[in-house]
């Protein structure tokens, strides 16, 4: 099929008598597999892939150069000062960790909620999670000053009788983010084994046979294996669900346990989690809208999938907007003059430009998703998603910098601006993110084929009998249905 002439197929209707199909275009198992695998199996990636890789890998090199420069010279090359001792490093860290959250939300929370539309996008979003966490991990790592002794954060019995302080949120962060990274990678890989086996069985060249053969670990679709696989996958989803909520809550503790006005706030954990999911979904849209167009995946990642993500963006964006409002309310209602000042200063002080950028991008921009036209037109949602990404970066910037730059004593006020090293390191982290992503698109199945097959009508017991009535695809029939199997006479 030629992807360039494919039309957008509308399955965004909300007719209760007729469930929208999750995979459109009359695909069956074989055509679905062909379409997904062809992205990996084509001998040469498209020219655009090489151009994108050249740009992103150069940026990655810039980042490593900046890190080298930082380590050789010291953190003075950054714009940090007193009072703003936490600058872009922590802003970027929180930004990247937040980006990751949509992946785990799609793969774990929506899995537990039996949201079948997740299957077309979960592999993609989980990959995004892992790469975003890689980028996030770099910033606190290089921010500690003496990077060659970061292993002191680990609780191991050393000759100095030195233990880490377990009552510090910064150490909680180490545990939370590394647990998150490990669990995400395992979840991703376990879900991918059946698809790697598909690629192995279709492989034509020796290199591919060896690579996918090793990666698939000898998976052969045995039902005794599927049984344990499904059980473990459910458990991993159940474990990852509170993990998603905890990781960004722990990140927010870095701020919330401080006494600084503007940070010392009990609303931070839920507010950070909502913001993380908000920015994460925006990043999924930013990546998947071009990817489904370039790789001809419009039948698998349909408009309905995109529309659902837009609805989540609208919801979480509204939660974020509510949080901004309630912070102001508490600052006034709490009657603490320092708190009141911190918030007035955010909106009208020297960083008002950042504050209003944040408000316009995060609160106002996603409100257009109330209109179906915006939720179902890919280029429109792409623009909004990019606004949200920008806005969420500014949100972290506003929280970190405005609070630090003007605390209790006017004598200790300051102004923070980044240096070229800050800017290039942040740009370079995007390079790393996209480099990893491009390799993922080229070498791994970007759609969870085995999972998408389970939500196709062909997987259903009722396929051919009650097709089109209700939403039984892949389900056990209802109690009133006749038993087709396992019935002893």
């Amino acid at each position, binding site marked *: 099929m030629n992807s360039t002439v494919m039309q957008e197929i509308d399955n965004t209707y909300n007719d209760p008598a007729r469930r929208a199909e999750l995979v459109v275009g009359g695909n*069956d*198992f*074989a055509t679905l*597999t062909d379409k997904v695998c062809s992205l990996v199996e084509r001998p040469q990636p498209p020219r655009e892939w090489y151009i994108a890789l050249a740009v992103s890998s150069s940026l990655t090199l810039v980042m490593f150069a900046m890190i080298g420069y930082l380590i050789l010279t010291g953190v003075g090359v950054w714009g940090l000062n007193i009072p703003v001792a936490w600058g872009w490093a922590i802003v970027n860290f929180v930004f990247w960790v937040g980006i990751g959250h949509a992946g785990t939300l799609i793969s774990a929370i929506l899995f537990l909620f039996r949201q079948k539309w997740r299957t077309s996008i979960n592999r993609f979003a989980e990959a995004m999670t892992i790469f975003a966490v890689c980028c996030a991990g770099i910033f606190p790592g290089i921010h500690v000053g003496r990077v060659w002794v970061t292993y002191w954060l680990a*609780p191991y019995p050393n000759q100095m*009788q030195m*233990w*880490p*302080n*377990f*009552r510090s949120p910064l*150490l*909680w962060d180490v*545990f939370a983010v590394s*647990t998150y990274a*490990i*669990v995400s990678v*395992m979840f991703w890989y*376990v879900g991918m084994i*059946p698809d790697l*086996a*598909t690629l192995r*069985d279709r492989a034509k060249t020796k290199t591919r046979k060896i690579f996918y053969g090793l990666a698939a*670990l*000898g*998976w*052969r*679709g*045995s*039902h*005794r294996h*599927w*049984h*344990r*696989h499904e*059980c*473990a996958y459910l*458990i*991993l989803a159940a*474990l990852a669900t509170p*993990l998603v909520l*905890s990781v960004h809550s*722990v990140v927010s*503790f870095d701020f919330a346990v401080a006494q600084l006005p503007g940070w010392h706030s009990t609303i931070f954990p839920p507010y950070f989690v909502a913001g993380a999911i908000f920015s994460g979904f925006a990043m999924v849209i930013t990546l998947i809208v071009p990817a489904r167009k370039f790789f001809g995946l419009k039948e698998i990642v349909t408009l309905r999938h995109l529309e659902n993500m837009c609805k989540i963006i609208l919801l979480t964006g509204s939660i974020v907007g509510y949080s901004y409002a309630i912070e102001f309310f508490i600052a006034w209602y709490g009657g603490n003059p320092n708190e009141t000042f911190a918030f007035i200063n955010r909106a009208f002080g020297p960083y008002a430009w950042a504050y209003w950028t944040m408000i316009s991008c995060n609160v106002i921009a996603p409100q257009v998703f109330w209109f179906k036209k915006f939720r179902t037109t890919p280029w429109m949602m792409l623009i909004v998603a990019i606004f949200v990404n920008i806005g969420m970066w500014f949100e972290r910037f506003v929280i970190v910098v405005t609070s630090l730059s003007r605390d209790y004593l006017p004598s200790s006020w300051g102004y923070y601006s980044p240096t070229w090293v800050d800017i290039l390191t942040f740009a370079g982290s995007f390079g790393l993110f996209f480099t990893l992503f491009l390799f993922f698109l080229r070498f791994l199945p970007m759609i969870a*084929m*085995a999972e998408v*097959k*389970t939500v196709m009508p*062909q*997987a259903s*017991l009722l*396929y051919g009998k009650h097709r089109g009535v209700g939403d039984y695809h*892949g*389900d*056990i029939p209802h109690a009133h249905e006749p038993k*087709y*199997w*396992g*019935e*002893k006479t």
Partner: protein
Amino acid sequence: MNREMSVEEKTLYGFLVEFESAESLREACAKVRDAGYTKWDAHSPLPLHGMDEAMGIRPTILPYFVLIAGLAGLGGAILLQWWTNAHDYPFMISGKPFFSLPANIPIVFELTVLLSAIAAVVSIFALNGLPQWNHPLFSHERFQRATTDRFFIVVEADDPQFDREKTQTFLNALGGAAVDAVEVR
């Protein structure tokens, strides 16, 4: 049975039956289960609901391993924090108690989740016998589609009830597309 036959049986891994749809596989599986075979398996490109009943698979013990690991993570995290910060080298930080559960909860939670998740993943591999990079089925050409769009039943020659002719006749009657012998390689 003559002597030649038993030699041949040693090189036979089992019989492979191919099906085109999930439902026919499920129906056939119930028949194989009722016929009393024990060393057999069904292969499909996706997990099918209702197969556990159709094949008579009992629930896996995997969740218990996860529970044990989770409890180990929980206990280990409490012990670690108490040992390091309250016992071995007490840290006095802003007048907080040396050991207090609320401040230790984040680490307890993270380590519980971490160990449970690792246990879940290790258990799949251990219980499924993976990685197993070579298997007689991989050499069978038809079987390559088991991970794409075809459904298979394999009855192994090791099965106590296995009899080359009887089993073949039984499998032929299941309604699959073809019954093939798979050799041990």
